[in-house]
């Protein structure tokens, strides 16, 4: 194509417009992107590992997660349901996690039992320093896929939401 003054100007306008759109998009992203600072993030000490008895789930408010002991295996389970983000309470009578929103049920290890959740409860990495349990809330591991339940045992009693 022959380069004329008109075609050069037209290309210049298009390039300039594209450049402005790019700058506007970048600026908007920088302004609106979520900030990672704030909230419960980073390593948090959860106390003595021996204080979490087998078959129990303890809510740690400082880290907003559940520490569950399934047959001696400790898990730091996210309280957020992988389905639609509702908080999952632990049902003492059934010994299972039962989501009140859509009825997903998880065993004490956070593994999927039933309901619409696409996977088990998400987890945070745990480590033991001396006898002290430490959770790293800055990292999240997706829960196990359905069908991979290892800690599934019969419910210890009636369900809190009528699901089983």
């Amino acid at each position, binding site marked *: 194509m022959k380069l004329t003054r008109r075609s050069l100007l037209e290309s210049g306008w298009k390039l300039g417009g594209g450049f402005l759109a790019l700058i506007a998009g970048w600026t908007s992203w920088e302004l*609106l992107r979520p900030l990672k600072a704030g*909230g419960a993030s980073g390593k948090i000490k959860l106390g003595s590992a021996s204080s979490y008895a087998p078959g129990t789930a303890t809510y740690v408010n400082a880290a907003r997660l559940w520490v569950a002991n399934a047959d001696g295996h400790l898990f730091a389970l996210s309280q957020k349901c992988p389905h639609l983000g509702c908080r999952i309470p632990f049902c003492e009578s059934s010994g299972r996690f039962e989501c009140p929103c859509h009825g997903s049920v998880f065993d004490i290890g956070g593994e999927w039992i039933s309901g619409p959740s696409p996977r088990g409860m998400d987890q945070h990495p745990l480590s033991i320093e001396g006898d002290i349990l430490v959770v790293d809330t800055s990292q999240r591991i997706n829960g196990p896929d359905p069908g991979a339940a290892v800690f599934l045992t019969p419910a210890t009693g009636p369900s809190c*939401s*009528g699901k089983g």
Partner: protein
Amino acid sequence: MTEASDTVVDVRNDVLEPQDRPVPEGWFDRVRHGEAWRSMFRHPHLDTPRGRALQSFSNVFLHVYPVKVPARVLKVRYSWRLGYIASVLFGVLLATGVYLMFFYTPSVTSAYGDMQQLRTGVGFGQLIRNVHRWSAHLMVLVVILHLVRVFFAGAYKRPRQFNWVLGIVLLAITLGFSFTGYLLPWDQLSYWAVTVGTNLVNYIPVLGDTLRDLLIGGEQIGQATLLRFYALHVAVLPVSLALVLMIHIWRVRKDGFAVKRGGVGAFAEESTDVTPIASVTAVTNVAADGRRVRLLGVVDRESVTAEERLTDDTVFTWPHMLVRHVVVGLGTVAVVLTLGVLFAAPLRGLANPNETPEPAKAPWYFVGLQELLSHFDPLVAGIFVPAGALITLIALPYIDRNPATESRYRKVAITIFSIVLLVALVLTVLGALFRGPGWEFIAPWQHSYLEL
């Protein structure tokens, strides 16, 4: 006044320049004939057809309407006035919303307190909030009914395809309005409904997490979310809706009023034999009867305009249409005011991220989706179905090539649409009325878990 009497022109009053008329004695009439008044209203009130036409042309408020409309448009059954009612509700929402803004701070520490203060410490605060809430719900309902009405009338077909698309955009903005406003009271109902609603975004492949975090300003719903939703609710969405609505109304005028068309694509009622003059912006011509006619633009071949009609069945918009709109507008305000007096807008306990209420339901217009989510994979029910529905609705006028508007010639389209509508209705009723804790089935007469 009948149309017949409109056409009788009193020559003595049918003058264009006010200075030609004798100035009346009264102070108000003297003001009306003053320079300041005339600079604002360029044509005086002349109670003749020509005078009304001139005033409509030169007055922005009257110019929203065409000067004359086909007589059949005046019938309620023509449109059920749904688009107009939605606009009135938008006006009510703007007015009450501005009032509420005076008493509300978008902060997680004070928003809920502001709501309580509004109920107990602000004159008519509760009433204004109630009216705002019920108007919002009603607007979503009326916009959906408007869409359904337009579909059944076949009014989305050529030349109105783009206006249908604009209508879908307006529906999306209306839903966005309602959803962002839902969070602002910062109570348990709003917190968990928005939690459930925003988590749907997570299921968008690849970008889901990032988009959700961008929407709520972090990983959890908190201060950043409240501020973002507030900014969207009071600035971004109103401006967007006003702009799109202006184009929507302008297109209603430019595309002409919908008429019934037979199966072959020709107008059954009115002829469109007039050949459009291409690329003409202003042409002066001499009509057969010797009058000079000026065309100020060329409209689509299938638009029905006054020039194309064999007989003039039009009536003046002012007063015939305006009076009807005033009555419907007042009726709409009366309905929302009555609802506001009778029913209080809900306010649950302070939002608590550590306690999910049972059940946590999305707003009623999303609860059908929530019901669907309890049966199908979230990717299917949360993303594919709503996104597919939205894309299909937008593309509908371009997919449906059948030019007929009468239902007997559109059996397939009407059957498919009716089935989809029925499924959506059943899912919504099921989710809204028949679901309890743990999303278990419960009859509403046993216990109602309806959330509005």
